[in-house]
């Protein structure tokens, strides 16, 4: 383990390797997750270049899964972009927690490193030490981003092979992924309240609002109500949507 002084004065190969090795257990599932995204994106009508470009430029799996069916349904671009923003708002929590570990890095590197903030590397770095070590985090981010993008590349190649995906229920994979992500995050009774409240409001709005606005409106309204009215919990970490 390197101290903050070492971390800010230069690269630390040991910690970098630590982070990489600690993330290897996650590499297969991130790779498969990426390949599922690549496959479904191509089936939904994106080109392989678009699926891959989105994965490199956005690099946030859950929000990409969210965007693809919206793009396929020709939802208004602004609705897709705002929904992406809201799904990814959890990054604020992770960025705030990670930031102090990166004091001493040049700003242009920080601007680049910010782009690879992801749930898995955050979890790995925070599990290793408090505060998280910058180089452990970077080692993990290298492993996770490589696995994700490689998975997407393989998925786009395979996805083109399946004709008529709805015949195999593959269109259902999108809501299924979202429901699985919710199911693993419901810990407290109040979590259920928020999730069910948002679902009910979203269904009601979906029946009256055009263009998928129900997602952003219901998601923001119910989470904000929850944050205002529910008792404060002891959470310091984002639960995040696992990529």
């Amino acid at each position: 383990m390197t101290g903050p002084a070492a971390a800010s004065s230069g690269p630390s190969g040991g910690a970098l390797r630590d982070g990489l090795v600690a993330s290897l257990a996650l590499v297969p599932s991130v790779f498969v997750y990426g390949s599922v995204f690549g496959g479904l994106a191509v089936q939904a009508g994106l080109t392989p270049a678009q699926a891959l470009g989105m994965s490199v430029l956005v690099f946030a799996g859950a929000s990409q899964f969210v965007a693809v069916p919206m793009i396929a349904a020709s939802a208004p671009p602004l609705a897709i972009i705002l929904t992406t923003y809201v799904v990814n708002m959890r990054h604020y929590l992770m960025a705030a927690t990670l930031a102090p570990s990166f004091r001493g890095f040049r700003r242009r590197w920080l601007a680049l490193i910010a782009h690879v903030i992801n749930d898995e590397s955050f979890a790995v770095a925070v599990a290793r030490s408090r505060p998280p070590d910058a180089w452990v985090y970077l080692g993990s981010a290298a492993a996770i981003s490589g696995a994700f993008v490689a998975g997407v590349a393989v998925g786009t190649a395979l996805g083109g092979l399946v004709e008529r995906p709805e015949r195999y229920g593959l269109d259902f994979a999108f809501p299924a992924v979202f429901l699985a992500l919710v199911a693993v995050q419901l810990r407290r009774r109040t979590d259920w309240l928020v999730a069910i409240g948002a679902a009910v409001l979203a269904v009601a709005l979906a029946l009256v609002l055009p263009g998928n606005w129900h997602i952003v409106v219901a998601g923001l309204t119910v989470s904000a109500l929850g944050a205002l009215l529910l008792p404060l919990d002891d959470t310091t970490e984002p639960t995040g949507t696992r990529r």
Partner: protein
Amino acid sequence: MSRVWLVIGGMAVATYLTRAPMFLALARRPLPPRVRLWLRLVPLAVLPALAVPLVLVRDGRLALGLANPALWGAAVVFVLAARGVNLLASVAVAVAVVALLRALG
């Protein structure tokens, strides 16, 4: 084609705006507790807001009937994932259930 790239560009900018500001500000003070709670609750609200209408709303109408294959698929994936079954396995089983029910119906 170019419309999709425009959307991807917008998504990239929007997502970068969730990552970079706090990171570059090197925030030393933790966020206020209510804000932290809100950020934690956002995914819990957004994901059901996304998923449940996809399952229950068909062509602008409620599809609550048991003949709706997606309803069964949703129940399956939710229960499996909540019981700790691997995400991809849960999704695969649910997709298979939906495909089977569609084939039968």
